[in-house]
């Protein structure tokens, strides 16, 4: 019988959080240590997509010389940042005094998180090779499939399926999940760790090569193209070498069963303001990923169980109020490394030994900022008029030339009660007094067949060459699937039949079709029956379809053999 495949630490996902963890752990190592990193992408970063404008506070700790290092994949440093209100025709920047401090991004790094991870992995390999007894093995194309327990302790993950456990299982004293939930959701389910569900947003992103350079400029937008009621906003980041990032993020706890995220982004690009930037430009890349938006109240009860921990988006450290995910993910890895180093030194990786992790995270800027932002997400549910009335009124004000202020004024004048509400909402977001815990509903409970899409303003006169159908845009995600890979499970086809009936009966498509970011799902007539089908080879593995499937009838698994998109540079 062959020996088990064993390491001290197994990291699931070559993510910013886990790579920070590995760097810190190697730095802290005083003797031999063995670390394995599993990554489902064909290379590190291939399945990583972000904005990203990021506070470099953790980068500074891990790589004190990153600014001077010529190999560091920096896209730019933010020199000017704006919060911009968009109408369909015109836009207006919020006056500087009205921009919340956390949306002043000057001095922040503009990053491709995909390239950052690839770079961190290279530095990590070098660092490990230079330190006696330190082993860091990175396994691209090998996703973790299943968590392996001994009693209630996690002892590793299943990687392969030859049928011989000695060949298939990666054993570790501590397994850390920085996998955005791909497998760690099973951990949360098994131990009922999340009393409140995680709630998600989806982000779509394109990279353009433009005629003019916008290097160092950062815009976050509200208003158009969001329909009334949609919590969504655009981001436009100017990078080096005339690269322009254009993206759109929207929440999935929305009544509209057919959000069509890629088309929201196309609509954003139709705005004359964006058109001007894209003029003469060329689309280079497309991709999508989800963001855990629940924040403080979605955090699990425990951040670690015996033999396992969660970091980054898998844990839920993203702060949607500040649009800060990268720095918080990295910080969680930094802290986890210190706890693991202690635990390994003591030879104790029990739940109690790993428990200090939670206290340390909550004591760091992660916990403090998430606490301060704890009601942000809920505000839009408590005050639906913000998205239903106020934002559309602002947008109309911008388009009508009355300005943002004019729009706000008109909104306020339409009833003092409404103005008061707006102030209440602002208080809840910015300076909250305690109003007790928030209970979220799962995103999948929102899509409503009876939803009526309100007529919103439409941008006119755009260049058709700058907008794409979803079927065409997927080409720019460079997906590649090994023959025969079918990584999304549909559990019960009868459940789909009735779901399709429900949504099509109301003139809609089922949510999996209407919210997919890559035209994977479709409904086809098969033997006289409207049937759910999937074109797996398009999938960018964002998991949106699983999140919005009302009867929980889908599961998106980590695809084997490096199958999936190529998000390098994203």
């Amino acid at each position, binding site marked *: 019988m*062959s020996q088990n*495949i064993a390491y001290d630490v197994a990291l699931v996902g070559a993510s910013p959080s886990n790579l920070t963890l590995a760097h810190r752990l190697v730095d802290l190592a005083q003797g031999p240590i063995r670390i394995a990193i599993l990554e489902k992408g064909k290379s590190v970063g291939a399945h990583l997509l972000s904005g990203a404008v990021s506070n470099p506070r953790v980068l500074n700790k891990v790589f004190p010389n990153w600014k001077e290092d010529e190999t560091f994949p920096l896209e730019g440093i933010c020199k000017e940042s704006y919060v911009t209100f968009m109408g369909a025709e015109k836009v207006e920047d919020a006056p500087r005094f009205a921009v919340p401090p956390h949306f002043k991004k000057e001095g922040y790094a503009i990053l491709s998180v995909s390239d950052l991870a690839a770079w961190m992995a290279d530095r990590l390999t070098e660092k490990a090779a230079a330190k006696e007894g330190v*082993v860091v*093995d990175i*396994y691209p*194309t*090998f996703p973790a499939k299943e968590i392996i327990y001994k009693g209630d302790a996690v002892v590793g993950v299943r*990687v*392969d399926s*030859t049928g*011989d456990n*000695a*060949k*298939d299982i*990666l054993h570790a004293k501590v397994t850390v999940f920085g996998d955005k939930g791909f497998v760690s959701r099973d951990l949360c389910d098994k131990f009922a760790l999340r009393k409140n569900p995680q709630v998600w947003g989806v982000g779509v992103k394109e990279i353009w090569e433009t005629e003019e350079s916008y290097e160092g400029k950062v815009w976050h937008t509200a208003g158009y193209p969001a329909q009334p009621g949609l919590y969504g906003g655009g981001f436009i980041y100017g990078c080096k070498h005339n690269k322009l990032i254009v993206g759109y993020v929207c929440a999935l706890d929305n009544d509209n069963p057919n959000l069509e995220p890629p088309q929201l982004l196309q609509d954003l690009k139709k705005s004359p303001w964006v058109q001007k930037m894209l003029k003469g430009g*060329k689309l280079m890349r497309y991709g999508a990923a989800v963001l855990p938006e629940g924040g403080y109240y979605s955090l699990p009860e425990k951040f670690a169980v015996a033999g396992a921990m969660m970091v980054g988006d898998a844990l839920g450290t993203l702060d949607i109020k500040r649009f800060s995910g990268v720095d918080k993910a990295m910080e969680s890895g930094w802290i986890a490394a210190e706890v693991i180093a202690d635990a390994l030194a003591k030879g104790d990786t029990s739940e109690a030994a790993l428990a200090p992790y939670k206290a340390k995270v909550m004591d760091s800027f992660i916990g403090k900022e998430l606490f301060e932002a704890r009601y942000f997400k809920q505000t839009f549910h408590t005050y639906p008029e913000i998205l239903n009335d106020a934002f559309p009124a602002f947008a109309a004000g911008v388009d009508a030339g009355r300005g943002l202020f004019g729009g706000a004024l008109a909104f306020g004048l339409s009833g003092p009660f409404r103005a008061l509400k707006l102030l209440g909402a602002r208080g809840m977001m910015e300076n909250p007094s305690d109003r007790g815990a928030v209970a979220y509903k799962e995103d999948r409970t929102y899509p409503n067949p009876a939803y009526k899409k309100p007529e919103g303003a439409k941008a006119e006169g755009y260049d*058709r*060459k700058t907008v*794409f*159908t979803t079927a*065409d845009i997927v*080409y720019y995600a460079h997906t590649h699937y*090994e*023959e025969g890979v079918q990584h999304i499970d549909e559990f019960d086809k009868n459940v789909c039949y009735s779901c399709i009936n429900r949504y099509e009966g109301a003139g809609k498509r089922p949510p999996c079709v209407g919210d997919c970011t890559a035209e994977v799902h479709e409904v086809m007539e098969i033997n006289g029956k409207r049937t759910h089908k999937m074109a797996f080879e398009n999938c960018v593995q964002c998991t949106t379809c699983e999140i919005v499937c009302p009867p929980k009838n889908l599961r998106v698994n980590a695809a*084997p*053999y490096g199958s999936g998109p190529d998000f390098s540079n994203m």
Partner: protein
Amino acid sequence: MSGYKMVVLMKQVPDTSSKAGVNPDGTVDRARAKRMMNPFDKYALQKALEVKKAHGGEITVVSMGPPPALEIVVEALEYGADKGILLSDKRLAASDTLSTAYALHMVVKHVGKVDMVFTGLQTTDGDTAQTGPQIAERLDMPQVTYLEKLEVKDGVATMQRVVEGGHQTLEVPLPCLVTVANSAARLEPKRFADVFAVKELIRDKAAYDKKVTILDLDVVGANPDRAGLKGSPTVVGKTWKMGEIGGSCTMFEGGNAKDEVAELVGKLTADHGAILEEVLP
């Protein structure tokens, strides 16, 4: 030892999906270019792995190239090969297929008695498809090109090869050399345990040196005058650029097929009208 002794010839080539290292004149700067295993050679490796799975044996991967080519030798071990040899020697620079086949056949001889030699159909850079057959001649082995399927029994191989318009079945006595078609079975993905084992092997120098060796011309007993530039009568007269790798994608969205086709024809005539005039009657 039971089973068959096999050699698979594999070449490292520039990564064709990457533009890095392609000089403006279309030639390749091999130092800057990204590198990969010649995709055709993966079919050859798969065939050897199939034989090993069915009958046991030992697979030695042989490559000739500069030191970075060791990457594909090690990668072949991750796919399940047993041993690797890199023939690397400054005197091999500027080899054409004649001298490449000479040098490689000396390596095969150095390996000892072998039952089967597998090569790819061709490479994605040199593209000549000459190396395999030349080696077979030099080794005085029967050769079968365009192999798709293979079964061996009692020293005889039954093979199916692709021919124009169909297939041909042959029986060939061992030892023999085959070049494997790219319509044969695809190389199966690496297994986790094999990749793990190779990572451990690299850290165990003594064990590694037993499995992976870098040889030069002297060790394999090759005559340096028949290798590299000296042994290569081929002269490259001229290279020219046929077009770009990649390029851009234009979507024609006239709203209906008729307008879209009109738009497409309009653009083609505008951009390439001269060529159209030449080829159209």
